[in-house]
């Protein structure tokens, strides 16, 4: 990814925000690759593909024991996303 950056053309608010939060202005050429994750209608690639994969998850786990002991806070509902 860094190879697409030709140079740092400016750095704003370094003093105020520090290096990590400052505004770095980068001159880029052929900078990428990036994947289009949302379109102009607001659809999400990740959500679309996750939904597709979730649909076949039950089949994958068919016949296996429940993965949790049903203690407080545990869930084996695979539609609960864990972050």
């Amino acid at each position, binding site marked *: *990814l*860094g190879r*697409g*950056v030709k*140079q*740092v*053309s*400016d*750095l*704003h*608010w*370094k003093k*105020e*925000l*520090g*290096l*990590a*939060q*400052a*505004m*770095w*202005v*980068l*001159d*880029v*050429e*052929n*900078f*990428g*690759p*990036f*994947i*289009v*994750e*949302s*379109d*102009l*209608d*607001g*659809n*999400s*690639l*990740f*959500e*679309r*593909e*996750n939904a*597709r*994969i979730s649909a076949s998850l039950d089949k994958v786990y068919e016949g296996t024991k429940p993965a949790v002991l049903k203690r407080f806070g545990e869930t084996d509902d695979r539609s609960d996303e864990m972050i």
Partner: protein
Amino acid sequence: VQTQLLRRLPIFALADIVYLDGTVYTAREGVYKRVLEDGIAMPMDLPADSAANFHCSPAATQHDDGSFDLGAVTATASFRFSKWIGPWLAASGAKLIIGKGGMSSKDYREHFVPHGAIYLTTGWLWHGCAFGAWCQTG
């Protein structure tokens, strides 16, 4: 895609691969708070200078003489910036938000669509499994 003076984006389909030419700037919670909560004027002319906001803290330093040493540029996870993204798109005119992992389709519909903006991701990372499966079946 040219990152400056993007009045309207070309039409992209999900999963298209995009390379950028022009100017990209990093801005994350520090900048969002300063501009949106503290009302401090932006140090750049946005979106004239650039309409591409990169969620990134570069591994870079600035030397005493003002020159830069740029190491890696990797994206940071964007979902944490959800609460600022609507006002930020309005204030900055950004058409491209570049980061890691995407945001929710709720954010896209509420905030990105009205401003004609889209999200570009650097890739899979913790979505590796999802993406692997998609590569095989898609």
